[in-house]
């Protein structure tokens, strides 16, 4: 089942099925979408052994148990935990740098919860510690977080599958893992909005928790662990990258190679954050030169 919203804000449900057996004149195995908007309003569906009500049934029918049995909720919770090791190496130095900058513990955790910007938070904190004024710190925030605008743009192809009311909530916790996981989940997920919200807020909760833990754990960790903890970030991103490349071959491979080379070569001319953005755009443009095999 796939949820989408039309231009009038009305929810539409479609079911993935295989046509061909129904003699619809297409070869067996061709995937299509059957519109279920009309009819079947209270029909129950069995999805992966969990009995759940029809997606557009009254809210009163959806108990917490049924909600938790929803495959998208379970997948969202599961996927949020994959990035547990990614939060740790960024949250720990952030918490320590916050203390060094003279912030109170509650201010460090509050800033982390309100911004949820990973390594970009460290840039803001560095500007604060250097004695920057409000405008200077906001400029650094803008430059360090401009990557998030590109993440939002990368989500554009999937936006019709999100309810308009979920977008403000989605935006608050939008981060790199989302764009890594969404392309593969878009094919399997019944309610992509629900999955994404559960996954994102699960990661946000871990991020805030690790910031608080970092205040306590940070001074206790041996320095020899630093390279291992630091490797969690590339390992997490690589785990998302390879399936994406595999699904969009050969264009994605070109995008990856150009972005990898560009992100290093451009550091001779530009700051690291900016060169990463420019290289990512250059890679995506280079991939357009390769014919799309999916069509």
């Amino acid at each position, binding site marked *: 089942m796939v949820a989408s919203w039309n231009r009038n804000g009305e929810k539409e449900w479609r079911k993935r099925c295989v046509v061909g057996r129904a003699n619809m004149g297409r070869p067996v195995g061709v995937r299509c979408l059957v519109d279920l908007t009309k009819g079947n309003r209270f029909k129950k569906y069995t999805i992966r052994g969990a009995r759940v009500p029809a997606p557009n049934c009254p809210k009163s029918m959806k108990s917490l148990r049924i909600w938790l049995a929803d495959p998208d909720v379970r997948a969202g919770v599961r996927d949020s935990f994959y990035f547990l*090791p*990614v939060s740790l190496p960024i949250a720990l130095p952030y918490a320590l740098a916050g203390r060094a900058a*003279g912030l*109170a513990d509650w*201010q460090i955790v*509050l*800033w982390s919860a*309100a911004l949820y910007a990973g390594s*970009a938070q460290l840039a*803001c904190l560095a500007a*604060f510690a250097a004695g920057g004024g*409000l405008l200077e*710190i906001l400029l650094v*925030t*803008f430059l360090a*977080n401009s990557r*998030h*605008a590109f993440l*939002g*743009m*990368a*989500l*554009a192809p999937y*936006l*019709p599958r999100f309810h308009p009311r979920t*977008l*403000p909530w989605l935006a*608050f916790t939008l981060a*790199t893992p989302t764009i*890594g996981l969404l392309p593969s989940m878009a094919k399997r997920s019944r309610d992509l909005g629900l999955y994404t919200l559960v996954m994102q807020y699960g990661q946000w909760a871990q991020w805030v928790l690790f910031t608080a833990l970092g205040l306590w754990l940070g001074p206790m960790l041996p320095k*020899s*662990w630093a390279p*291992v903890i630091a*490797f969690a*970030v*590339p*390992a997490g*991103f*690589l*785990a*998302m*990258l390879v399936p*994406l490349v595999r699904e969009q071959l050969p*264009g994605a491979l070109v*995008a*990856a190679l150009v*972005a*990898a080379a560009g*992100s290093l070569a451009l*550091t001779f001319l530009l700051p*690291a954050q900016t060169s*990463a*953005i420019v*290289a*990512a755009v250059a*890679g*995506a443009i280079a*991939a*357009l030169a390769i014919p*799309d095999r999916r069509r």
Partner: protein
Amino acid sequence: MNSPWFILMLIAASALLTYLLRFLPLAVLRGQRMRPTLERLLRNMPVGILTALVTQSVFLKNGQLTWGLEDYQVHGLIATLALAIATRRIGLIVFGGLAVVGLLNWLG
């Protein structure tokens, strides 16, 4: 200057700015009918962003490029890449890569 009120204002202002950076592209692009070329471009953006972040995390240390194989993270990158090609389990890939770097670090 660094009174609690100033810090609270700073937190609120930086959070609002970050939120707008995230929300505005979603709000503007929602409901737009995109050209196939633009859609392909945006579909390839995650690959570009993730690759750039991975590459810089491993090969860029304190603003300096590091290429040497004596860096355990390069070995870890190769091991993680091999795991990612062999399996689709994100948890196994992340913890497997970390285990390789941890082992090399421990062996010294």
